[in-house]
């Protein structure tokens, strides 16, 4: 057990385990030390010099985010020397920062702006010539926009990308010319980037953001020839409230539906329905693979960042991917076929908007084999912006229900938004399909935000070995283990973002002060599991909507028609 150390932070005594950093100790004393390059669980290199403090026994100021505490240490975080140093650092950063704040997506939600105001930093003190800010904005990818001139080289995006074991970007050059870019200054779309967007939520400023399609959606809402339908992904209800100041983990499903309905003439569907549909198809596919000796283990395919990771880094694993489309694309297919046919709508007149926690889904809906069935995919952040533009007082909205026929879904569909959720939902239905007497619906072994979870279940005399991983470096570990023969599974769930969709690259960007003190992914996931528990339907196969969809259209899971509309294929695209 670690020894305890007692020290004083601004004269306040605190006792913390040995090895704790000054930053962590200060939090215990309820003292906030400003940071820029530090981000809990992601980046800690001590390079931005914002967290400099005075500490006894140290020469000069030290970086609190990396400096370990010592017995009897006295730390002062708010002296003239600290403040001057931080202000200078900010003014130097501001000199190389394109200060186009008014129209910046991160205006009022920018760490650099927040600190500059707090420290009264003069943005023009070391002003650069205007024409210095002329680097082209990278618009190569349909999911992300990178503006190098807003970048402050904090390296948080690089740390996030490396943590994903993708490594699409890095620090290029030396000294004054250091900048963040892909190798050989490749456009992001040509790099190994998978579009997960973890760099976007790591960025403290507006250098990285999603490629917005909000204007297209507004245009469709204004177009009398179009019928517009929205559907919202499971995790959006657990995070949208954050954009309106509600506590992390507040489920705002009812207000979210009401808000979308007030954006214009549209219907609002529940994507948990096609999460249920995914489970029907995927569970059937799994059972079929087990019975017929298909390629095992089978990996889930609902996460487009993960799918791209396989196609680009491990194309040899493509046969292991389930052929099921993601819930977003299943919904697109379902709407442009079943729904259009049933309601006599020409598919080209139906404008389908998905609201997703994800940036990778923006490129997924542009994939050729998806046939443009989803017209626009907007992130939780974009939806929040639309609601603000529309002048809606979010917290005053009534709670409204989704529109039929895609309103009712099961708890299994809802937990798709968190790591382990797809696995648990699949187990609920697959076990019942294999053994009609199997009634268990809770699989706590696969819950929680641990990087890798494993379990073995006995169903109808068959041993089913499962694993769940979130974060692509953990996926990488699973792949390596499977390939080397050290890990043996039948079914593996992968979500690209650590913690799953609740922590997706399209989720609201909260201030560092919250991100560094709260366990966002746990709190957000809890909201989904709470909703699951309250739902009368826990198992996807029990959903009355699913019964209707199969009864009226697909016949049975994995039927010919289901394969045409709900399944897809993958293409090797090896990149380095």
């Amino acid at each position: 057990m670690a020894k305890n150390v007692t020290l004083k932070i601004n004269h306040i005594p605190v006792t913390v385990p040995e090895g704790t950093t000054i930053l962590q100790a200060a939090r215990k004393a309820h003292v906030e030390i400003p940071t820029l390059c530090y981000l809990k669980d992601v980046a800690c290199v001590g390079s931005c010099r914002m967290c400099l403090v005075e500490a006894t026994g140290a020469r000069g100021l030290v970086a609190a985010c990396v400096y370990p505490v010592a017995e009897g240490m006295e730390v002062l975080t708010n002296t003239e020397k600290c403040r001057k140093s931080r202000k200078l650092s900010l003014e130097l950063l501001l000199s190389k920062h394109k200060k186009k704040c008014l129209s910046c997506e991160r205006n009022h939600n920018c760490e650099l702006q927040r600190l500059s105001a707090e420290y009264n930093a003069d943005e023009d003190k070391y002003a650069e010539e205007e024409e210095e800010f002329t680097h082209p904005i990278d618009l190569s990818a349909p999911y992300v926009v990178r503006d190098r001139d807003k970048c402050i080289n904090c390296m948080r995006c690089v740390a996030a990308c490396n943590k994903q074991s993708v490594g699409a970007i890095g620090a290029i050059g030396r000294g004054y010319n250091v900048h963040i870019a892909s190798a050989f200054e490749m456009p992001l779309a040509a790099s190994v980037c998978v579009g997960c967007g973890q760099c976007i939520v790591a960025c403290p400023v507006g250098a990285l953001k999603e490629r917005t399609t909000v204007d297209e959606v507004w245009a469709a809402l204004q177009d009398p020839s179009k019928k517009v339908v929205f559907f919202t992904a499971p995790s959006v209800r657990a995070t949208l409230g954050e954009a309106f100041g509600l506590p992390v983990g507040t489920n705002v499903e009812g207000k979210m539906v009401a808000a979308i309905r007030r954006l214009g003439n549209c219907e609002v569907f529940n994507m948990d329905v096609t999460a249920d549909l995914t489970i029907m198809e995927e569970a059937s596919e799994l059972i079929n693979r087990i019975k017929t000796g298909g390629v095992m283990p089978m990996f889930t395919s609902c996460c487009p960042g993960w799918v791209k990771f396989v196609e680009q880094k491990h194309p040899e694993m493509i046969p292991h991917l389930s052929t099921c489309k993601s819930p977003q694309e299943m919904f697109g297919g379902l709407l442009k076929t079943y729904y259009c046919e049933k309601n006599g709508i020409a598919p080209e007149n139906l404008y389908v908007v998905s609201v997703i926690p994800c940036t990778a889904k923006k490129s997924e809906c542009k994939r050729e084999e998806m046939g443009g069935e989803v017209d626009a995919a907007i992130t939780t952040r974009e939806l929040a912006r639309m609601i603000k533009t529309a002048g809606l007082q979010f917290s005053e909205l009534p709670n409204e229900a989704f529109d039929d026929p895609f309103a009712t879904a099961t708890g299994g569909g809802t937990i798709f938004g968190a790591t382990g959720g797809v696995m648990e939902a699949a187990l609920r239905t697959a076990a019942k399909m294999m053994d009609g007497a199997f009634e268990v619906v809770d699989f706590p072994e696969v819950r929680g935000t641990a990087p890798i979870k494993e379990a073995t279940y006995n169903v109808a005399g068959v041993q089913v070995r499962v694993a769940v991983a979130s974060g692509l470096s953990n996926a990488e570990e699973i792949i390596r283990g499977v390939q080397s023969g050290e890990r043996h599974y039948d079914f593996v769930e992968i979500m690209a973002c650590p913690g799953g969709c609740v922590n997706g690259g399209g989720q609201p960007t909260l201030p560092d002060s919250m991100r560094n003190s709260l366990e966002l992914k746990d709190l957000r996931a809890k909201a989904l599991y709470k909703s699951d528990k309250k739902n009368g339907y826990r198992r996807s196969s029990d959903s009355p909507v699913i019964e209707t969809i199969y009864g009226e259209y697909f016949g049975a899971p994995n039927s010919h028609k289901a394969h045409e509309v709900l399944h897809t294929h993958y293409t090797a695209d090896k990149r380095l």
Partner: protein
Amino acid sequence: MKQSEANCAACGERLGTPEQEAALRAVIEESRSMPGCLMHILQEAQGIYGYLPMQVQKTIAEGLGISLSEVYGVVTFYSQFSLNPKGKHRISVCLGTACYVKGSDKVLEEVEKELGIKCGECTADGLFSIDSCRCVGACGLAPVMMVGEEVYGKLKPDMIKGILDKYREESK
């Protein structure tokens, strides 16, 4: 892949001659288990190829199981590494303090203009490449440039054409 391959095609290089490729793969193989081997491999690779084209860096990244952006980051950090091939005659214009105050920036500009390439690049015929350096230890002759091992001092921009013509003549 399509676009990145196009980039490779644009840089015009695969892995060089079979001998070069074999030498590169051998260096990677024998050093890969050594901690911090990237620098060593890059130095060796530059020795084999004269510079570090994309395909060489990709091979190194793949061999070491690290990202291309990491390799590229190291290559662009150290001035000893070059992304472009070097010419038969390597021009090095000193931008050290003494030369700089004596107007070596104008000398560099003139060399670039005369050859139609930028500092760090190589002419299409492979005859010249330009680099800048920091002090060759001949400050008394500032501004100074080197062509190969030859040192030229007390330069003025209008002297550049004459100097380069000498090398052009030689290789005819």
